[in-house]
């Protein structure tokens, strides 16, 4: 437990140390914006601003974030695919900011959200382009390489048509995957496209539909970042993906836990910052993590308890408080005798006496 806790605290110190510094000359900042269960990434570099996806419908996080950063214009808006959790605030972005160009895959989705986006592009003066694998575009020192979709007819499966981009700034590479799934990931590996990246945005919010082992091996990232809302309906990020990354020794950071995550690079090295300095780092564990009162973040200090199971524990204790750690086995999915034994051996989880005052 000490090792894991120390690792988390160290990671958060690194995050905190870089947070808040101004955009220096010659620096690229990649903001993985906390939009809850959705996706939006802002790339700001010398002389260019690029937005990849624009959050979920019903929110204002993207426009608010761009306003707070005093963004004046957007050179490129990339719509990876037309699901509402990726295009939700795109029309509003187009109405509020001058956008010079919009990229989409060309996949037509028959929703009002997508129609409003098309209306907003038509009402703007933006150029429109449907790029294909192999296309490249430079913005100053940044090169955007399009990896997907391939040329030819678009697949009928929307996730297979996702625009996937590799962004290279000096020696540092980023991979943006949208909601691409394992089939697409494996196809990219097969095509022999350059996939290596220092920072990988996990496909589909960390879902098991994505992050195939062979793809992770080909990308060979230093670290992975996913965007998901805490206690979302789908259990993202899925445990299989987190386990796969753990086995490969790839640290992973999610917007559910860290809020907006910012990677800054001068093209030689990079640093990681979190807008929320990490709620875990400010938490003192008083002896043990009480299943009946610990926060969602604290619960994840328990071995085998990730984001989804932490949510399950919080839901279960609302119905009926836990009377013992052993109840995890009967009340939380995926906790069997072996994992329960690990949890008890770790000694972090506990059930404090219920106060009847």
């Amino acid at each position, binding site marked *: 437990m000490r090792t894991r806790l120390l690792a988390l605290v160290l990671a958060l110190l690194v995050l905190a140390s870089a947070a808040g510094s101004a955009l220096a000359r010659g620096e690229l900042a990649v903001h993985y914006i906390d939009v809850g269960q959705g996706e939006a990434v802002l790339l700001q570099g010398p002389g260019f601003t690029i937005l990849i996806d624009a959050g979920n419908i019903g929110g204002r996080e993207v426009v608010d974030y761009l306003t707070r950063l005093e963004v004046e214009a957007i050179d490129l808006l990339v719509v990876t695919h037309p699901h509402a959790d990726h295009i939700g605030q795109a029309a509003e972005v187009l109405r509020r900011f001058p956008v010079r160009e919009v990229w989409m895959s060309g996949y037509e989705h*028959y929703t009002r959200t997508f129609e409003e986006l098309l209306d907003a592009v038509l009402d703007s003066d933006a150029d*429109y382009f449907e790029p294909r694998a192999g296309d490249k575009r430079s913005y100053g020192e940044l090169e955007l390489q399009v990896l997907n979709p391939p040329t030819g007819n678009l697949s009928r499966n929307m996730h297979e048509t996702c625009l996937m981009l590799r962004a290279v700034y000096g020696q540092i590479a980023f991979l943006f995957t949208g909601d691409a799934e394992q089939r697409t990931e494996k196809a990219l590996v097969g095509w022999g496209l350059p996939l290596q990246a220092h920072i990988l945005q996990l496909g589909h919010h960390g879902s098991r539909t994505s992050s195939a082992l062979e793809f992770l091996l080909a990308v060979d990232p230093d670290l992975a970042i996913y965007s998901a809302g805490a206690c979302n309906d789908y259990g993202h990020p899925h445990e299989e993906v987190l386990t796969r990354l753990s086995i490969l020794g790839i640290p992973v950071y999610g917007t559910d836990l860290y809020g907006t995550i910012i990677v800054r690079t001068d093209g030689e090295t990079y640093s990681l910052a979190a807008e929320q300095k990490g709620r875990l780092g400010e938490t003192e564990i008083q002896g043990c993590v009480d299943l009946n009162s610990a926060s969602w973040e604290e619960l994840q200090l328990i071995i085998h308890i990730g984001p989804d199971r932490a949510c399950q524990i919080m839901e279960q204790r609302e119905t009926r408080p836990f009377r013992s750690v052993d109840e995890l086995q009967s009340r939380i999915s995926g906790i069997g005798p072996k994992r329960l034994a690990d949890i008890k051996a770790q000694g972090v989880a506990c059930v404090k006496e219920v106060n009847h005052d």
Partner: protein
Amino acid sequence: MTEGKQWAVIDRIVDGSWAVLVFEEGQRQLTVPVGKLPQGSREGMWLAVRLKDGELAEAELDLVKTEEVKARIQLKRARLLERMRQRQQGGT
């Protein structure tokens, strides 16, 4: 309480298990198990639905509405592509 008929579109199927519906009015979202959708449902199809106590009680595919929206979307994308073609040719 059963509510009146509303229209919603299947925005996405998540992990093969969940369907996210977006209502025409107010852009409200509702996540339901895919098993609750009518046979033949796919992403991008419109449904006529009734809710009961906030849960999906009835859902029927509305293929006419789906075709109407599809035609508008195709037209709007075609206009965008045509605008770009004209710009590339030096037009306005």
